[in-house]
């Protein structure tokens, strides 16, 4: 009996110490890890969208509460004026969610560029959404307040051949971004002033 109690006590104490240590380290590294993920996963897309800006969009970011979730917005300063920003939304693709970074200019509500951040589409077919600039360039200059569709669905985007579902997913993501933008525009305009 004594042996069993000893086992239970030792294991319990050991596990609680381990839990406590891990919680402390997790708390200490959380912000750092978030920054690293931004840098390596979303960074390339953000940089290519806001190419030529004079600041570091990953440092100049702000968050807005949208319902239950917090969305991050990355500010790009062009010619000393902060009126362009990028943010992420998602669309349903062939192999799961496609993360899409959308850059929008606040003054004229137009999309400057989009970029795929995370996806699990078929390599070589659906993955072209991320690598083929011919596809993503079609989104440049579209109005950021309207829904966006591929040609077979009555829109104006040429889908990637063999990857209609992926193309629809990207369009869906851009449409979602438009919804978010319409909903949050007043708050975005408010926050972005701080960077001017």
């Amino acid at each position: 009996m004594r042996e069993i109690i000893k086992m239970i006590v030792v294991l319990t104490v050991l596990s609680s110490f381990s839990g406590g240590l891990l919680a402390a380290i997790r708390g200490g590294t959380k912000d750092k890890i978030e920054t690293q993920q931004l840098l390596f996963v979303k960074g390339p897309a953000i940089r290519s969208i806001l190419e030529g800006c004079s600041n570091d969009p990953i440092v100049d970011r702000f968050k807005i509460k949208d319902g239950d979730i917090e969305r991050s917005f990355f500010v790009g300063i062009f010619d000393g004026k902060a009126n362009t920003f990028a943010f992420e939304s998602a669309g349903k693709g062939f192999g799961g969610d496609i993360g899409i970074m959308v850059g929008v200019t606040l003054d004229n509500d137009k999309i400057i560029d989009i970029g795929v951040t995370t996806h699990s589409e078929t390599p070589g077919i659906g993955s072209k959404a991320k690598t083929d600039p011919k596809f993503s360039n079609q989104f440049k200059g579209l109005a950021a307040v309207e829904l966006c569709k591929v040609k077979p669905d009555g829109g104006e985007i040429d889908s990637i051949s063999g990857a209609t579902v992926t193309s629809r997913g990207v369009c869906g993501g851009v449409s979602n971004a438009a919804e978010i933008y319409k909903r949050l525009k007043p708050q975005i305009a408010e926050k972005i002033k701080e960077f001017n």
Partner: protein
Amino acid sequence: MAKSITQEFVKGLWDEIPPFRLVLGLCPVLAVTKSVENGLGMGVAVVFVLVCSNILVSLLRNIIPSKVRIACFIVIIATFVIVVELLMQAYTYALFLKLGIFIPLIVVNCVLLGRAEAFAYKNGVIPSIADGLGIGAGFTLSLVSIGALREVLGNGTFFGMSVFGSSFQPFTFMVEAPGAFVCLGLMLSMMNLAGNK
């Protein structure tokens, strides 16, 4: 009876070098040695976990009941592995992306459990540290040497720097999975050849 601290350290470098002599911990040896950098990163992570777990197991060796010792070892090892994983994510994210699943898999690496069971549970703190450092260094050395062989032959580079110039036709087979087995087999046979003399 007790070996000196130096002996405990040195044995890990040749007599008990993990992948070649003990033939333990082969999974990461085969999987992450595509390049020297990956091998070194993995090796350093293992050294850290091994030394920390050896220290703790040796400190607690009189408290841990022998019937649940394996469970205790696993808790200790797993804790330090997660610590390494979090630190890697925070400070060397690029390396973390490359090593991926093999960092959490250090938990089930036999080298760690083996050292805890065979050495740290029976010896004091100082010899356990020496043992951890030695075995860890041996493990790192093996990963780096296999990594170097595979990277140089399979990719024509060492630590990302070109070795042979642009005219070299890479022997791509070496950086793929079968190359790892061939490479490990050759290294093992060399070690045996050298050891049997």
